[in-house]
């Protein structure tokens, strides 16, 4: 049996249902402009599965709503995530899953930056550089094996 990188991850309680959004007055007003915010992005990525454990990124506290910055006006999104351990070799794969999820769900006008949260990974710079090189991402997604792994992680995303 292969050894897991992080054998005993801390598990956090995940919010129930499809969205953790609180009800707002505007929600029933069909004329209101529904801007994309951090909550919406969080809802898109929190149920992605960890590549190693049968747990979601939210349950492992890899993604948190407060670590997502969105400017709907400027079309920019920054998602910072926290690997469960600083030498996690899955960090790039997790980031790739987040990127692909957002690529598939969001309008193409958004410029998305994905980054390991500062100080949470020993190869922070290298991981971030790779995740934000769109050519490397494109080439990775032409790799059918890798794409299959990504799709498996995304299968649980709701």
């Amino acid at each position, binding site marked *: 049996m292969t050894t897991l990188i992080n054998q005993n991850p801390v598990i956090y309680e995940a919010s129930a249902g499809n969205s953790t959004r609180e009800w707002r007055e505007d929600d029933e007003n069909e004329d209101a402009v529904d801007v994309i915010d951090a909550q919406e992005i969080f809802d898109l990525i929190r149920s992605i599965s960890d590549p190693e454990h049968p747990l979601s990124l939210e349950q492992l506290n890899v993604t948190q709503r407060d670590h997502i910055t969105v400017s709907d006006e400027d*079309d920019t999104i920054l998602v910072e995530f926290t690997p469960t351990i600083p030498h996690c070799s899955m960090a790039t794969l997790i980031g790739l899953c987040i990127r692909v999820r957002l690529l598939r769900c969001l309008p*193409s*006008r958004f*410029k998305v930056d994905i980054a390991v949260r500062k100080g949470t990974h020993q190869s922070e710079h290298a991981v971030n*550089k790779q995740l*934000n*090189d*769109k*050519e*490397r991402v*494109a*080439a990775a997604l*032409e790799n059918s094996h890798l794409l299959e792994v990504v799709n498996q992680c995304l299968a649980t995303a709701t």
Partner: protein
Amino acid sequence: MLWRQDQGGHKRTIRSVAWSPDGRQLATGSFDATTGIWERDEDESGDYECVATLEGHENETKSIAWSKSGALLATCSRDKSVWIWEVEEDNDFECLSVLQEHTQDVKMVAWHPNEELLASASYDDTIKIWRDDDDDWYCSDTLVGHESTVWAIDFSPSGDELVSASADETLKIWKRFVPGNALGIVTQRRGEPIWKCVATVVGKHERCIYSVSWSKVNGLIASSGADNTIRLFEVKDATAPVGTEGRLTAEQQKALNEPGVLFEADKVADVRKAHGTSDINSVAWYPNADHGDWLASGGDDGSVRIWRLED
């Protein structure tokens, strides 16, 4: 029909294309690690036919470039190497050299406009200059200064300067100084010119810059990137009024080791949202004076646009 596999087409994304100087052949670099050489079938259909496939790179071929004379072809890849091929008769291409000094993916190669001198740009944040000594190719200089991936490079019309575009959101202009140059800039190795950064264009692009083209006709630099904008710059040498007797002042000498200040790059025009909200991956000036004011751009929206510069 470059994607027709039965005719030798590529199996994965085509990353770049380049016409041979005589316009007779087209080279294609693909993520399938090969380079295709295509020729138009003059007799019948007029389709392009694959006349050679250059193999050797371990993975994605990123960029290809023909030398001015058409006698040499350079290719580069994610495998960190730059290959130099000699174009022989009967569509035969012989590999002259495999250059492996970059430590990461090589994003682009560009030939000097007149000399057999090659520049390469890399994910390792550097640019390397390659020269040959009796068919023996070697790295003659490494240009350090960018803080992230160098995506694109292009030479000035004379070839004495080089512009580079980077993910660090800056453009840099590098100038070649030969031994015994009038400015008194010290060169390192005997007989070997040295390239120094003489200008850094900061704050003109807001995200990664993917492409840069230095017009060989009007001397303007065009750049584009992930901020959806095409920008044009006019470059001028700022050394003349300050130095004395053609040499640099002590301050200027010192400044040469800092981000460059010897050249000024003034923005002359920009086109925001040139491809809507899409990244603009590539810009290229028309290569000669027939349409010297034409600029082509390609974006993630899948379209190519041709722009004309108006006074």
